[in-house]
């Protein structure tokens, strides 16, 4: 059984390489395995293989889409045939609400008084602290499939991570901020040399759609699916608006 022990240690390093590629390691373990990969060609080769395989699977396999009749067949089976009025109505209502928010101009929609102001302060604070740190991010990656899983285990719910590189807002990474007493995810994007933080707060009670500036930063907030998103940056308000619109309209 002696051989199994060293073999087991080997095995563990291999598993860590896979978890590293999957963005599942916390920063300490990620750094440790990065150092080992730099020193051990065996592990570096494993990393190259896993990355190549993942890319191949993503790019070469045909998308498996459900056959067109499947949904109707399923609904028939469970006895839910006919109208699907409810989601349509909901979608309509959501877009109406969005329109109301969008046209509300300078009105500060805060169903929970003072909650909005406090949150804005906390979000700007998180952004400022991040700018002062050596890195504004805890996980550095432009791949949303790396950033999203990184949040798992750190916060209850992973945020919606959207790739806006084609629109000139590349994803840089993510970090965890604390708003009130709650750890919340922040995504970090860049525009030229400007940093944009998007903090997602799962709290539909603060329903707002509002842009403002405070302490030299522009802030835009909007609510979607029970989550309030706060975009903070020193980028000019026009471009930040564009960013917010792209983020809000992007498919998840």
């Amino acid at each position, binding site marked *: 059984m002696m051989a199994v022990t060293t073999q087991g240690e080997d095995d563990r390093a291999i598993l860590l390489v896979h978890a590293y590629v999957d963005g599942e390691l916390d920063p300490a373990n990620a750094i440790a395995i990065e150092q080992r990969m730099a020193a051990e060609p065996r592990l570096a080769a494993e990393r190259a293989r896993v990355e190549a395989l993942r890319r191949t699977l993503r790019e*070469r396999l045909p998308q*498996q889409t459900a*056959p067109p009749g499947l949904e109707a067949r399923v609904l028939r089976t469970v006895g839910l045939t006919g109208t699907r009025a409810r989601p349509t109505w909901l979608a309509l209502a959501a877009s109406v609400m969005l329109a109301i928010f969008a046209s509300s101009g300078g009105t500060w929609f805060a169903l929970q008084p003072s909650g909005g102001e406090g949150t804005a302060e906390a979000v700007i604070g998180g952004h400022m602290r991040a700018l002062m740190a050596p890195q504004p991010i805890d996980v550095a990656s432009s791949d949303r499939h790396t950033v999203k*899983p990184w949040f798992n285990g750190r916060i209850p719910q992973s945020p919606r991570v959207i790739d806006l590189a084609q629109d000139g807002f590349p994803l840089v990474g993510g970090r965890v901020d604390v708003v009130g007493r709650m750890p919340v995810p922040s995504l970090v994007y860049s525009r030229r040399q400007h940093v944009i933080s998007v903090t997602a707060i799962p709290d539909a009670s603060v329903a707002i759609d509002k842009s403002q500036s405070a302490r030299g930063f522009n802030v835009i907030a909007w609510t979607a699916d029970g989550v309030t998103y706060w975009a903070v940056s020193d980028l000019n308000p026009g471009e930040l608006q564009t960013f917010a619109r792209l983020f809000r309209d992007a498919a998840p």
Partner: protein
Amino acid sequence: MSGEDTRARFERIVQPHLGDAYALARWITGDRADAEDVVQEACLRAFRAIGGYAGGNTRAWVLTIVRNTAYTWLARNRNAVVTAVDDLAAIEHANANRAEAAAGGAYAANPESELIATADAARLEAAIAALPAHFRDTLVLRDIQGLDYREIAAVTEVPVGTVMSRLARARQRLVREIEAGE
């Protein structure tokens, strides 16, 4: 719970994941028509169980039911018995072989990666289909459907450590399969 409630819940919790449900069923059964039957049966189970759905990740919940349904379906219709392959000795053995093979050649990561990157779709599909069942569903959930480790652990009902080792084995086998075919 009123009928309207159940409908709304089904539309919110199950319906958005039909595409993923079908893809997983298709990979497990290896057949389009069978996958449709499995999804249909799984949805019926989900519909009946939806009153007890306690919240959390809806996709993981749906995929758990789909996976279980697919395996019972296979057992019933094809007499297939899913054998557990998380046998430690087998893993050690496979790993030793890989280390040996790696030691034999130079660590030329680039040409090898290129080889992997140019594998064609049909060959990939065949190699995935040939994986042992639990290696295959773990790989599909991670590398094709994009679930994270915790979600996969929930769907396949094993600890995260088992997910990690299954995933690594599955990928290593695929890579060997691809390289052997060239």
